[in-house]
Structures are given as C-alpha cells and as structure tokens.
C-alpha cells in the first residue's frame, strides 16, 4: 500500500540522516529544561552504547537482541511504554529523557546515568529520527495530575473496589502477584509473551518510583504492551485512591501500607475477596 511504503522510505531516510531535498527529515532536535539535543551528536553515542541492543537501524535487531527478553524497543514503530501523554500519542522529549536516565528495572535496559545530561538529550534527538511519525505528529499533551490527597483507609478501600471493578486482577491477580486468569496468554505488540507487573515483589516500576509515576502509568497505559490506559474511566480522586491501594500490595513501608495494615488486622475479615466471585468491597 502506498502510504506504508512512503512511511518506510521516510524512516530509512531518518536512519541515515542523508536525504535528498524532496523528503523533509525532521525531529533532529530534542529539548529538556535548557538543554538542546542534536541528532548528529547523538548518532556516534547511539552506535557506541545503544546499537548492540536497539540495532543500527533502530529496529531492535542488534547483535545482542536474540539473548534479551523482553526485547529492546523498536524505535521505527514510535510506540513507547513510559509516557506522560495519552495512549496512542508520542511521548514528550522529557519522557524519553527520563526513560534513558532511569533505565527499565527488571529488564536489560540499563540506566544511563553515567552519560552526561547533554549526551542523553542528544541520544533522544537521534532516537526520534528512526520514525517519520516524529515529523507527521506532535507529542501528546501530558495528562494533568492534580495534587495528591493524603491517603486514608476510606480512599484505599475505594481503590480496592476500583481494582476489582476495572478488572486489574484479571491480569495482575487478586493479590497483585501478576498471576490473574489472563496472565499466561498475554503477548506484546511483537507477539512476544509478557508478564503483568508483580506488585508483591516489585518495589519499583519501569516507568518510575513515585506516586505520581504510578498515577501516570495506569492513566496513560504502557503502549505496545497489554497494559491499557484507564484515563477515560477514572476521575482524578479515584485515580489517587487506586494509587494508594496499589501501594498496599507492595513490599514497602509506605504511609499507605502502614495505615492499611493497622486497619486490616482488626477489619480484614469483613472484606470480600477480589476476583471472579468477589465484590472486592
């Protein structure tokens, strides 16, 4: 089909950064704070540090890719997991910069803190040359995150109801162990098997560590994976309740967990179980 071919041609152009006048190659820059990243400066860094996994062409066919699970991101698809922007939209430069800085916990994607901030933003500019979508579309508008209310038992109970009603448990399991009824059959956008996040062992998320990061994760979804966006289903107050409930599933000494455990020892038995038969209330 014609548009598809054009798209491929464009992204090939992006990869070599040498395109005849007819094709406009863009997205040669990236910006965070006062830093301006340039693709030309990012290219040698990419070849040295990233191409072994993400491939010279950004198509995730590096020499190490076959040994790696989950697979490195294929930048030619311009589909990214950690975004502040709605599902189906491009991430911001800041989002990509944060991913490169933070790395992806529990995967082979290392944190690149050893590189200077300027190196990292140059790399972001270069990554954006692998797909023409960066020239045809703008990054989405980051979702608004209102200030976090203090956690309460009532809020955590509401969050628990939402975990039941929105059926997070079908993938993540009733206790957040990553073992829900649909967990075994999940695949990502490359048909590779993928596991839901296990809250019982996980202390950090791939897309961050703070309560704000957690809010963002389920509101925007992890594009390319089975983890959907819930932005259309949750009011901000509900989303914060859900954040506070999710924190009680983790092996962490968070304020949420402390409040919850105190309440649970005396009232735990009143709770309905989460799951197919449960009301989760």
């Amino acid at each position, binding site marked *: *089909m*014609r*548009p*598809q071919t054009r*798209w491929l041609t464009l992204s090939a152009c992006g990869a070599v950064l040498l395109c005849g006048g007819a094709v406009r190659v863009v997205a040669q820059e990236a910006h965070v704070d006062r830093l301006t990243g340039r693709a030309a400066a990012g290219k040698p860094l990419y070849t040295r540090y990233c191409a072994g996994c993400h491939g010279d062409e950004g198509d995730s066919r590096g020499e190490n890719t076959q040994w790696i699970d989950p697979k490195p991101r294929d930048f030619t*698809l*311009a*589909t990214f997991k950690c975004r502040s922007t709605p*599902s*189906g*939209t*491009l991430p911001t430069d800041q989002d990509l910069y944060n991913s490169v800085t933070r790395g992806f916990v529990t995967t082979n994607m290392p944190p690149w803190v050893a590189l200077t901030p300027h190196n990292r933003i140059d790399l972001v500019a270069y990554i954006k040359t692998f797909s023409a*979508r960066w020239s045809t*579309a703008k990054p989405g508008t980051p979702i608004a995150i209102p200030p976090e209310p203090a956690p309460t038992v009532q809020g955590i109970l509401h969050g628990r109801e939402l975990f039941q*009603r*929105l*059926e997070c448990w*079908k*993938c993540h399991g009733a206790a957040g162990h990553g073992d829900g*009824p*649909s967990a075994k*059959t*999940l*695949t990502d*956008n490359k048909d590779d098997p993928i596991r839901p996040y296990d809250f019982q062992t996980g202390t950090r998320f791939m897309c961050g560590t703070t309560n704000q990061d957690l809010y963002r994760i389920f509101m925007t*979804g992890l*594009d*390319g*994976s*089975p*983890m*959907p*966006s*819930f*932005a*259309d*289903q949750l009011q901000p107050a509900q989303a914060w309740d859900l954040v506070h409930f999710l924190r009680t599933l983790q092996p962490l000494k968070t304020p949420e967990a402390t409040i919850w455990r105190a309440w649970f020892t005396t009232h735990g038995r009143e709770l309905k179980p989460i799951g*197919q038969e449960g009301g989760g209330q």
Partner: protein
Amino acid sequence: MIARVVAGLVVVSVAGATAGPSHLPPPAGTISGKVTYTGTPPKMRPIDMAKEPACVTDHPTPVMTQDVVTGSANSVRYVVVYISGGDQGAPAATDTVRYDQKGCLYIPHVAVMQVHQPLEIFNDDPHSHNIHPLARVNPEWNKSQPKGAPPIRTAWDQPEFIPVKCNVHPWMHGYFAVLATSHFSMTDSTGEFSITGLPPGTYTVTAWHERFGTKSQEVTVAGSETKTANFVLTARPY
C-alpha cells in the same frame, strides 16, 4: 454521493453488499463476484471461553473461530474487496461505523471504513474489555472499556489493515480495514461481494483476507453495467 450511501450500507450490514438505492442518479457501474480458495484452509475450531463465565452463558453452542470462515463451494467470508487503483479520491464518509464487543466477540469480525470516517466502539458485555488496535502505520493504542462505559469514538488517518485484540480475552481477534477509497464491499457467507456506484473507468480491484493475503485484477466498467470479477485466494494452513 451514491458511492457514499452504498459504502455506508456495506459497513452497517455484516452480511455484506446489497444493491444501492435505485432512485438516485447518475448511472453507475457495479463490480461483483465471488471469492473462493484453493489449497487446504485451516479448520474452524470452537472457541473456549471458559475464562469468562458470562460469555460461556452467552453462547449455548460454542462459537467457531472467525479468522477463516469458509462455506460451500470453497467460498470465503470476511474478504474485503475494494478499489485500490483508478479511483477518484472521495471525501470520507460521515456516517459512523459501529464496532461491538459482545459475548466476547467482535461484531463485525472485520469492520471496513474509510480514512477519517468516524468509528464507535461499544462494550455490550457485563465485564471489561481492553481494546488494543495493533496499528503500525497509524498509532497503536490500548484502552480499557469496563462494562457500561460510553463508546470510544475515534477515526484513522492512514489506510491500513489493523489487527484488533483484547488482551484479557486472548481469543478475541478482529480487524479494522481502513481504506482510502469509498468503493468497497465485504464477502458474505456465500463469498459474494458487490461494489456499486462506480463511475465509468478502469479500476484495480483488490481482495484482502487476513490469512490468505491479497489478489488484484483490473476491471473496466462502462456506463451502468455490472462486471464480474472472481478471486481465488491461496489457502494456507496455520
């Protein structure tokens, strides 16, 4: 105009093409025919919905897989037949294409639409689905739609055959067939299709099937005649 009305009808009726309204001018041609296969197609299998009790109750007799639906005399259902060349560009239809998640199935299994045509996705089930169009040319997205949630309203910017899936229910597979043309049809259970409202001209007609690939042929239409174009796709087992 005729073309658009007819296109709308094709989209709404799952069974496929019907003749357009007869009272509208000007005279226009029709390309119709039948899609069959050679070779050995995979067998349709009953879907096991045990993971979703509500959907098991919805279907007293088990539903069969829908990616390859064959009928008598080797006919193939859910083949999108469309004008891929020779067409004058038409503005996107404004009528809304409806896509339902019902009884843990996508209805219709393949929804055909034009670029920029409004699409509404409904969840009619008493539980959640996540709707995950695995687009490559268009942006991929993935949204949860719990029971009772309002329809998701969207549209696609680029022509593409987009696989759609629900990650919660791994047997749920469908397609959005997003076309540049307003002239298309989808084969019914007898493998028949009919593309109406064609101004005189020479067209490339393409038949697309999610498993059996595509075939094209040239057809010239003069005046208000009906030309026959049959397609034989090569069946591939899984």
